[in-house]
């Protein structure tokens, strides 16, 4: 049961949505699938007077490839991403990630935009977005702006999206994200991650031209371990660099003990999932999976 009353708005265009957010300001909140927001409302952890439902905004649920870029609308459902051949070919880490989120019922409601904008350190998509160097397209009263995922996630439940800005699209460079993977350690199939790691390798002439890593569940927000990336970047292909990167990533991890495991355990597992994600990414980068 939801106790705190609010007024519901259902804009049909992005402009209307942005205008409503401007009008109600601090007292408003966007609603996407509601798969995080509604549970929070039931817990009494939500107190905005105005809910602006993005669910009826048209033309934001696309999944398409344009000029070598996989472009996914902020309202594309995780269930559609999970089943998309385009996604699997362009950024397989995102497919790994999508199927690992909750269960089919939640994935049918929850879009990718909500998963990143909610910015719960337990959300899985942020790790893939950061490892992929994805580009986030935001639209607000001041128009459109773009930023890298690495700059988007600031803290628990806090992103660089300004109040009233809608995440319109997330863009992945298909060529550079082809060698990518997400590994999620779970207590049971539908649970949040104990820890998770996304890795991406762009291999060029037998060396790693680019390496991206992102970790779920080991800090206040998604972890972007730059030193670990540096250990792999420019290296010849071989697992020595991967073990070193795994150590470095775990060293930056700041997990807390909870029902899913102790901090020490998670720190150790951060190493394991990072190495496995790198290994899987390499198989895909080199395996001619086009």
């Amino acid at each position: 049961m939801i106790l705190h009353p609010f007024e519901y708005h259902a804009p049909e265009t992005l402009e209307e949505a942005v205008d409503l957010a401007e009008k109600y300001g601090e007292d408003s909140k966007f609603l996407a699938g509601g798969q995080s927001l509604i549970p929070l409302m039931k817990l009494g952890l939500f107190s905005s007077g105005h809910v602006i439902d993005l669910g009826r905004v048209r033309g934001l649920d696309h999944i398409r490839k344009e000029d070598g870029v996989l472009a996914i609308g902020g309202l594309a459902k995780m269930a559609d991403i999970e089943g998309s051949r385009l996604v699997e070919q362009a950024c397989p880490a995102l497919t790994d990630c999508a199927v690992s989120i909750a269960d089919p019922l939640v994935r049918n409601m929850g879009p990718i935009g909500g998963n990143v904008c909610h910015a719960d350190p337990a959300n899985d998509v942020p790790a893939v977005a950061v490892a992929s160097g994805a580009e986030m397209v935001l639209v607000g009263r001041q128009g459109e702006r773009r930023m890298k995922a690495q700059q988007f996630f600031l803290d628990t439940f806090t992103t660089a999206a300004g109040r009233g800005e809608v995440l319109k699209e997330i863009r992945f460079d298909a060529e550079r994200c082809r060698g990518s993977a997400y590994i999620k350690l779970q207590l049971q199939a539908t649970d949040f991650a104990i820890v998770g790691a996304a890795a991406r390798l762009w291999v060029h002439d037998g060396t790693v031209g680019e390496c991206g890593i992102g970790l779920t569940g080991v800090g206040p927000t998604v972890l972007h371990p730059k030193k670990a990336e540096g250990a792999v970047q420019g290296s010849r292909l071989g697992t020595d660099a991967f073990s070193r990167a795994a150590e470095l990533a775990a060293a930056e991890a700041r997990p807390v003990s909870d029902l899913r495991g102790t901090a020490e355990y998670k720190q150790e597992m951060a190493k394991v999932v990072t190495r496995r994600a790198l290994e899987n990414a390499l198989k895909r980068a080199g395996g001619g999976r086009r």
Partner: protein
Amino acid sequence: MRVQMEINGIRTESNTDATTLLSDFIREEAGLTGTHAGCDTSNCGACTVLLDGRVVKSCTVLAVQAAGRKVTTIEGLGDANDLSPVQYAFWKKHGLQCGFCTPGMIVSAYALLQRNPDPDEEEIRNALAGNLCRCTGYVKIVESVRYAAKLTREGKTPFRAAARRRKEGEIHGPPGESL
């Protein structure tokens, strides 16, 4: 606010608060109590319904989010006098014990068979991952879904066939007794 949606093919309209959950709208406004509220914390799937053909947890959807859309509940699949193949299969293969999770299980299984008429065990278990059962241990549930798949593929509706024969006086007893 005025909220209108189509539930099991019937236009349902009511004055309701924006905070009303779809599960409460279905149970209290439409009076359809087959959709169960198990946990009300988005964890159990007892409240599963189809929203525009896709399975969702109706306790985690606002009724206003479903406004103008099509909802199908367990009652929309068939009733006690006319069990659909999935309902019949759960009954025939003992896919339930207390029955609390059953409406959600059946709706999820139905959605699976709509898009995949011949799922293997893994596909069945994945499709039902959001539906928890505290009684059966899932073995009989998986068996029921496989049987339902077989009936659906073969276009068989044993329950309906028996009901017809009963009506015509060929067989006697309560529905299902002679199956």
